[in-house]
């Protein structure tokens, strides 16, 4: 019996030791570590990779220029964590980056559903977190360490609708009715609700909003239903696969609204353009950033060209957002003159940038400040239109491409 007990104890002890694998973290004293929380694997891995590219370029730039001057030239070290697109993994990764990798600030997490609890983790540990994620509530929890420089769902939805109305006026077209087709995910539901609200406020009759199952193989019935109410405007909030399906099936079922708009997501992916050719002509979309903004702000175009040269692809909407977040942190570090969490946080909160040539204005706004919820009240989105396989930036006027005109209606070229 005792022999057996000894054996059990040995086995259990070995198991216990095995779970102890715990390589000590290496943290140089004079470097600044910024944690990046992204989906590096899983279905949205492509986005994570784009974000990594953008940040790597930004980080290398800062380090090549001498690092953080006010910290004696301290170099930036980016530490990447993988959320796999899942909330619990995001939370665990955030914790790992904070407690083991000892990062001084974090950027994350792309999916709002992941960023939401993960930023709460950062708040718990009192480490500054720059959000990339549009879910309104991320900055509505009374947190002190969570910030968002870019537009949230409400702003994006408002921009889209106001833009549609304004562009419609320019083309002497009016939109009387609409349907909204959104995927049945957190993002789709949230965005579509807001869009409905703004449409109704603008006097547009919303016949119905349907949240269809993500990745369905066939959406004919949905399109038929939409066709039945003869809407002037069809708004779609989908990721790439469904965006392709909806667009194709609208064509098949001969649903040709006056305007076809997207809340973002799949419709603004380069792959959408690649696969949709003519059918994409005239689609309007809300986005937080498009390369065309470089026409109004030259340094952004140059930066984009460098990115293309380095990685073979331009910035994406989200990688641009991550880039902006990074620049804000760098700016704050310079002002804080320390990496201590509390003071860094205060420096971020005190951010006030109005110079359009500042690197943090990669997503250009009237100003970059944070209100007491941590949201930038000056953040805006923009409306682009796909014309001839390219995105043309049309709204708001301050950053619109000077030589771009809105093309109306949808599929005007093929009618």
């Amino acid at each position, binding site marked *: 019996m005792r022999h057996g007990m000894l054996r059990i104890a040995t086995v259990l002890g070995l198991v216990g030791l095995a779970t102890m694998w715990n390589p000590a973290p290496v943290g140089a004293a004079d470097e600044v570590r910024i944690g990046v929380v992204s989906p590096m694997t899983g*279905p949205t891995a*492509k986005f994570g990779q784009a974000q990594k590219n953008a940040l790597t370029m930004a980080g290398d730039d800062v380090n090549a220029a001498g690092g953080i001057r006010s910290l004696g030239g301290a170099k930036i070290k980016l530490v990447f964590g993988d959320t796999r697109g899942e909330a619990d993994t995001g939370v665990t990764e955030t914790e790992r980056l904070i407690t083991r990798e000892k990062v001084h600030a974090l950027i994350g997490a792309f999916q709002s559903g992941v960023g939401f609890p993960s930023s709460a983790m950062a708040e718990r540990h009192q480490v500054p977190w720059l959000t990339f994620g549009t879910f309104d509530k991320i900055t509505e929890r009374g947190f002190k360490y969570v910030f968002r420089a870019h537009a949230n769902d409400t702003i994006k939805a408002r921009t889209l609708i106001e833009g549609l109305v304004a562009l419609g006026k320019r083309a002497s077209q009016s939109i009387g009715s609409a349907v909204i087709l959104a995927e049945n995910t957190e993002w789709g539901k949230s965005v579509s609700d807001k869009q409905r609200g703004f449409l109704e406020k603008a006097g547009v009759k919303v016949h119905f909003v349907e949240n*269809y*199952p993500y*990745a369905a*193989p066939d959406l004919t*019935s949905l399109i038929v239903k939409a066709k*039945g109410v003869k809407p002037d405007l069809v708004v779609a909030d989908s990721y790439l696969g469904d965006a*392709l399906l909806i667009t*194709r099936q609208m064509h098949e079922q001969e649903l040709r609204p006056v305007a076809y708009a997207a809340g973002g997501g799949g419709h603004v992916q380069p792959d959408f353009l690649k696969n949709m050719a003519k059918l994409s002509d005239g689609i309007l979309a809300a986005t937080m950033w498009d390369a065309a903004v470089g026409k109004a702000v030259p340094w952004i175009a140059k930066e984009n060209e460098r990115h293309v040269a380095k990685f073979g692809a331009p910035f994406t909407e989200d990688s641009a957002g991550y880039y902006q977040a990074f620049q804000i942190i760098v700016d704050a570090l310079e002002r804080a003159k320390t990496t201590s969490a509390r003071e860094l946080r205060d420096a971020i909160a005190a951010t006030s940038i109005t110079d359009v040539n500042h690197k943090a204005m990669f997503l250009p706004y009237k100003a970059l400040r944070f209100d007491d919820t941590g949201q930038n009240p000056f953040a805006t989105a923009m409306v682009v239109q796909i014309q001839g396989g390219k995105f043309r930036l049309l709204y708001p006027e301050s950053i619109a491409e000077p030589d771009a005109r809105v093309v109306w209606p949808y599929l005007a070229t093929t009618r």
Partner: protein
Amino acid sequence: MRGLAQAVTSGLLIGAVYGLIALGLNIVFGTMRVVNFAQGTLLMAGMFMTYWLWELGGVHPYISPLVTAPLLFGLGFAVQHLFVSPLLARERAREPMSVLLLTLGLALVLENVALLFFSADFKTVTTDVSMQTFKIAGLIVSVPRLVGLGAMVATSLVLYLFFMHTDLGRAVRATGQDREVARLMGINDFRIYGVAYGLSAAMMGIAAAVLVPFFYIHPGVGTSFLLKAFVIVVLGGLGSMPGAALGGLLVGVIEGAVALWVQAAVAQIVLFAVFVAILFVRPAGLLGVERR
């Protein structure tokens, strides 16, 4: 009314594609009682093969089964031989749980290997027929899906004849009914299983050829079809080829109609409810002959 007619028409067409996949599943699940959770990933493999043939060789998807079907057959045969047969040999139950878990593990591996090598990007193939439509009596019919309907009808006919009127087909059915007895009667069950599983996998090559022109290719694409295929096989009647075909059409129509009247997401619930109901009310399914 026109809306309903259109929804039903489109439902029939997509249902035909479901039916094709269900036919494949029916071969292993319906006749051999192998609960094949890897059916979806085999479809995915077929779709990737079809995609690469198009991208690298310019081979039109509708011709690709000439290559993909034999390849998949081999893959299916190998899987059966290496993994499933040893299990079936030692299990007494008719549909052993271990086989379900094994194929589940296989599906995990296949899907994530594809993810590793091909990344999560959506790939599409646009061919001449991809977006063609024509009208019959004012109803819009999508050409690639019509092709799918044709393929499904032809395949179910061929399979029906195979299973009912050939020795090999009958041997497969016998093995499904009672493995022990079949073995005692001299049927080399391992080889039979291999053929059946290979056939089931080869069928995914045909389904892939039909799907690729109008559906995106992605490592996770099989999962969405898998559960539906199970519903169809049970609805139509395990082992019945016409049943799987009919079941597919029915599921497509139900989906389309419910999506029109209520909401597409509700259609999912309805289908699962139908599945549960069938298992309790009429376990043999619509056209099944099996009595428990």
